[in-house]
């Protein structure tokens, strides 16, 4: 049973980036028909979980240049500076647009939108809606999107393949979950907004749906992935669940303490402990450095042993009930609900957990990939503004800025493309046959999905985590190869068509295995340490060789091939990353 439908632009993903792109197209040209295809209802997308806030220059003492500098230095000079400049300029406008759409931003007493400090930012510029910023942002976008008649939603459709013909991407193949029907959705342009891939790792703040599907779709279709070795660990996740305790908790003045109650960050060149938060210093240092400090403390035996491995403590007690319940209500709710801890009087055990993917599908500043007709925005894409390490609260504005840009660019592109060719149908039929042969109608098979997934997560956590080495990565590559082989022998318990979530898990696993492989390969070839990529065997940054983006292609026989592309430097030449102290030779 195969259905076909046709639109001008198909957006894969209904998270922040996808919805922003949809609205941008609907506003640019109401004549264009837009499809939003998403494997979950849009308001379930993981943007909903973002807590802390969204950065955009707001106060008089701040400037676009300072935001750009923080972003570039935070990214260890791997960011493309033209993209960063566009980003910081458009971010405040995008955030203001959300205010017009009804986002309940937190306010100053006089009614102006309030901002809070955030990690790695020298100025206070993070807009927030209590500590449920992503939730409010996503629902505002979703509810606003409901008013556009030109947007058609395909809720709970899982995209399995990009349709490529004549060198151009012209649609997608998707499985409708409720019926199991395979649907070809053709279009003149496709925008990938499928979010990240944190589920490749054992401990993560990411939701179940973050399985790197979009990256795999693009990669398989021939588009390169960029900077895949840069995986961000967030220093403060809850130990068992990986649930995030937002950076805002530290921005409001929380301390990180080791087992002796000592603010250990002072030992790692992150500044001196002050009673109140100092921007770009101590607890407000960047995430990569904080996560690395945790591992160092662990090596020194100064972390606390918990039932789920070592932890340190986040101390909010001195903030008092009022601040905690007005500025961090969700943090308190999460602690009470999932750890049975009240942060007003108790320490919160935390550990670094995988949080965000700096790398992704390579795009230019308009969200266009090298593959004609294919665009990408949001966490799935790598523009790149985040470089080797993303600063907290830069992702939400990135979704908006580049979601809108990709939407406009795709609309312009679609406007003068011919209608998709009939030959695409053949591709869809092939895909339907593949799903049947490989999964639904396959008999035999011994491997359980969960076993393979758990093993992959263990390997990645151990060998490609906060610190990696040539040796650990080679081992991981071998193991991943083995898992890929084993995954051919997967056994499904569920052979039905209706709402077959097991089939979806199998497809997600195949995406994750493929993306994990690109991470390991890129990490192996980058023999330096930069931002979130820390090699114990190459501990220093090597600008001569690696001030470059790694571009990974799916080569012959599906093996990854890495090339390097230059980083765009406009106004900020590479320098030392300094936190918590004055720069040595001036800025």
């Amino acid at each position, binding site marked *: 049973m195969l259905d076909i439908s046709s639109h001008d632009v198909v957006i894969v993903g209904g998270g922040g980036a996808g919805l922003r792109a949809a609205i941008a197209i609907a506003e640019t040209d109401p004549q264009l028909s837009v499809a939003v295809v998403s494997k979950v209802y849009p308001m379930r997308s993981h943007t909903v979980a973002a807590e802390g806030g969204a950065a955009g220059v707001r106060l008089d003492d701040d400037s676009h240049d300072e935001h750009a500098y923080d972003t570039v230095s935070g990214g260890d000079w791997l960011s493309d500076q033209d993209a960063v400049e566009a980003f910081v300029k458009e971010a405040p406008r995008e955030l203001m647009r959300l205010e017009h759409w009804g986002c309940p931003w937190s306010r100053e007493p006089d009614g102006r939108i309030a901002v809070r400090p955030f990690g790695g930012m020298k100025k206070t510029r993070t807009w927030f809606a209590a500590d449920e910023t992503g939730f409010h942002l996503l629902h505002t976008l979703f509810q606003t*999107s409901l008013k556009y*008649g030109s*947007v058609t*939603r395909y809720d709970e459709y899982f995209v399995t393949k990009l349709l490529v013909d004549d060198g151009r991407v012209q649609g997608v193949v998707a499985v*409708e979950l*409720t019926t199991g029907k395979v649907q070809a959705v053709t279009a003149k342009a496709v925008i990938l907004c499928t979010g990240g891939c944190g589920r490749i790792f054992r401990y993560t703040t990411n939701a179940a749906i973050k399985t790197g599907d979009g990256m795999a779709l693009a990669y398989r279709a021939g588009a390169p992935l960029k900077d895949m070795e840069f995986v961000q660990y967030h220093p403060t996740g809850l130990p068992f669940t990986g649930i995030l305790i937002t950076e805002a908790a530290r921005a409001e003045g929380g301390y990180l303490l080791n087992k002796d109650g000592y603010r250990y960050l002072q030992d790692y060149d992150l500044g001196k402990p002050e009673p109140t938060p100092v921007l770009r210093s101590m607890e407000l240092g960047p995430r990569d450095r904080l996560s690395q400090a945790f591992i160092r403390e662990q090596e020194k035996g100064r972390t606390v042993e918990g039932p789920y491995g070592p932890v340190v403590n986040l101390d909010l007690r001195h903030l008092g009930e009022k601040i905690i319940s007005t500025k961090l209500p969700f943090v308190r709710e999460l602690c009470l609900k999932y750890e049975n801890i009240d942060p007003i009087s108790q320490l919160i055990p935390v550990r670094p957990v995988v949080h965000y993917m700096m790398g992704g599908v390579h795009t230019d500043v308009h969200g266009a990939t090298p593959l004609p007709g294919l665009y990408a925005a949001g966490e799935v894409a790598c523009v790149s503004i985040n470089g080797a390490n993303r600063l907290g609260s830069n992702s939400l504005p990135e979704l908006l800025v580049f979601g809108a840009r990709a939407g406009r660019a795709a609309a312009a592109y679609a406007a003068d493309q011919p209608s998709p060719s009939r030959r695409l149908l053949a591709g869809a039929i092939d895909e339907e046959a593949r799903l049947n042969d490989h999964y639904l109608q396959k008999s035999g098979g011994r491997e359980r999905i969960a076993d393979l997934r758990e093993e992959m997560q263990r390997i990645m956590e151990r060998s490609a985590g906060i610190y990696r080495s040539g040796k650990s990565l080679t081992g991981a590559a071998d193991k991943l190869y083995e898992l890929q082989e084993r995954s051919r022998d997967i056994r499904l318990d569920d052979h039905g068509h209706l709402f077959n979530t097991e089939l979806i898990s199998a497809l997600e696993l195949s995406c994750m295995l493929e993306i994990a492989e690109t991470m390991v390969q890129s990490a192996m070839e980058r023999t330096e340490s930069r931002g979130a990529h820390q090699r114990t065997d190459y501990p220093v940054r090597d600008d001569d060789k690696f001030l470059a983006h790694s571009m990974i292609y799916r080569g012959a026989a599906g093996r990854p091939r890495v090339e390097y592309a230059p980083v765009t430097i406009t106004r900020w030449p590479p320098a030392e990353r300094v936190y918590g102290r004055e720069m040595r030779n001036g800025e």
Partner: protein
Amino acid sequence: MINPTEYLPKSYHRRMSTYWWLARWSYLTFILREASSVFVGWTVLLTLVQIWAVTHGPSANAAFHEWMRHPLMLGVNVVAFLFVLFHAVTWFSLTPKAMVIRVKGQRVPDWAISGPNYAAWVMVSLGIAWVVLRG
């Protein structure tokens, strides 16, 4: 937005049982609260009969008093009283949900709205009793 899902598989529709209101305590209290309407109506009826009796001389009055003393009537009226009481209590405690009053941006707590309600209720009841009993 338009949702293109036209074709839906055979989904299973459940019907509410006729006794759904027995399934949960809160549903039962809801139904009891709604059932109080019968006794509110009943009380009005009693009042009307009584007005008629009072205005129609001693024999009508006597018959009315006789009627009210009948055990069956007393039984019904005890139940009616309990229901009417239940109506009053739920009514006052639910009022603050429907009426949000803010003072200086702070929502006035529920008790601050239902409290005066209860107080007024007691005062009014005592007042009426006084007027009736005074004579």
